[in-house]
């Protein structure tokens, strides 16, 4: 293998950081939105639901292209100087992970909303207790929502290439490195990077699942 393991480690750490930050941002916006939409007593909000579910199929290259145009020095947010930086990758991947987190959270909360509301209200609780109970009772599917979001972010290559540029020691992540090594015909390195990518995803998902199953 021509790629040194130290560099594989560096690339894997960057992948983990970028996808982790993207999932965190997606959760920051997606969890409250999902709980809020799912817990609303009256049905409705179908439009939001359709948008979120359709968003799960958002094409990464299109998201990448939009962020490229936004963040380009000739674009409206060019002054931030974010194009071809890890921060740009975090933003684009957060947008890709967001519908996963919000959509799966919404579905999980909605399935429990009526039962939990009846129970909590019956015991004399208010709407605030309804929401916290719902959040707690939905923790396992919410872990699945986070895992799906993380998976979408870390496995994505189209947006990462367009807004990151695959710059060595700067924006190269596991997926873009696999593309590069394949392009160079270094299939052994490409395969090793792919295995590391699967390993990282597996470990992160395992940590999330164990965390969700506590108690």
């Amino acid at each position, binding site marked *: 293998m021509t790629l040194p393991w130290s560099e594989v480690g560096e690339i894997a750490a960057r992948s983990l950081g970028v996808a982790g930050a993207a999932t965190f941002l997606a959760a920051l916006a997606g969890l409250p939105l999902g709980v809020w939409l799912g817990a609303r007593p009256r049905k409705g909000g179908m439009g939001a639901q359709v948008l979120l579910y359709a968003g799960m199929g958002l094409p990464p290259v299109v998201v990448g292209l939009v962020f490229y145009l936004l963040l*380009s*020095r*000739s674009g409206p947010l060019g002054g931030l*100087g974010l194009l*071809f930086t890890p921060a740009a990758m975090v933003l684009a991947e957060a947008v890709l992970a967001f519908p996963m987190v919000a959509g799966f959270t919404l579905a999980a909360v909605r399935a429990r909303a009526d039962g939990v509301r009846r129970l909590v209200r019956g015991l004399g609780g208010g709407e605030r207790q309804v929401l916290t109970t719902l959040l707690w009772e939905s923790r396992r599917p919410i872990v699945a929502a986070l895992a799906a979001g993380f998976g979408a972010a870390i496995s994505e290559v189209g947006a990462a290439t367009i807004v990151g540029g695959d*710059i060595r020691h700067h924006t190269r992540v596991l997926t873009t490195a696999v593309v590069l090594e394949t*392009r*160079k*015909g270094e299939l052994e390195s490409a395969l090793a990077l792919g295995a590391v990518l699967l390993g990282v995803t597996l470990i992160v998902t395992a940590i999330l699942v164990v965390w969700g199953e506590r108690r």
Partner: protein
Amino acid sequence: MGRRFVFILIALCGLALAAAPLRLATTTSVNDSGLLEAILPDFTRQTGIEVQVIAVGTGQALAIAGRGDADAVLVHAPDLEARFLREGLGVAHACVAYNNFVIAGPASDPARVDGAASALDAMQRIYAAGAPFISRGDNSGTYHRERALWKAAGLEPDGQPWYLESGSGMGATLSLAAEKRAYTLTDLGTYLFMKDKVELAGLYDRPDPLMLNQYGYMVVSPGRFARVNAEAAYRLRAYLLRPDVQRRIGAYLKDRFARSLFNPLYGQCKVEVKP
């Protein structure tokens, strides 16, 4: 507390300024062949300027630079470079190196490209035989040359059932050509690099003015884009043209392939690039 925060902010700004990396948009051939990684670390050591390389096709490299998203370009399509200069997007053009394009294909060579008298004859033979040909189809420098060759030969391959467009980089296109037992046009560097990994023979690989592959460097116009790191781009230009660096470019992997992957030009263009 507030003062410490301001301190940290100033320190961070200072760090950002000290780094002020140079962003070079370039073609996959100079990057994937390892040339840049062989010469740029020395530049960084001498100047403290970190070079961030974005390796894409020539068309995309010029598009990225044309929006001010890179500070310099190193590409290989003289006519596109001339247009870039003409549009005022680039300045200080310099020819860095050259090699030649190669027509690669299956060793069985059904179109008898091996015996072609010229590059145009080779294209005509492929066309006449209706042998599978893989085009990059991606606006890269190699794609531009391929289209120019068809045109010069008076042929129109579009719509022919044997004419396929890969839409991917040179390395991937070579792999595809090998899998499909097809012909393709490739730059010498990528071909030599991939030779052991794909079953393709270099069938037309001769000094031929039509097959000349010249790499040009340009600074992205600081007049056009205020944020361009022009100082660093000029320093890299001077570095690349330094006689000792040019010799190192010429010697790169010469031992391994028994020929130069990139021939130094010392700034003297073989094909003129006029704005």
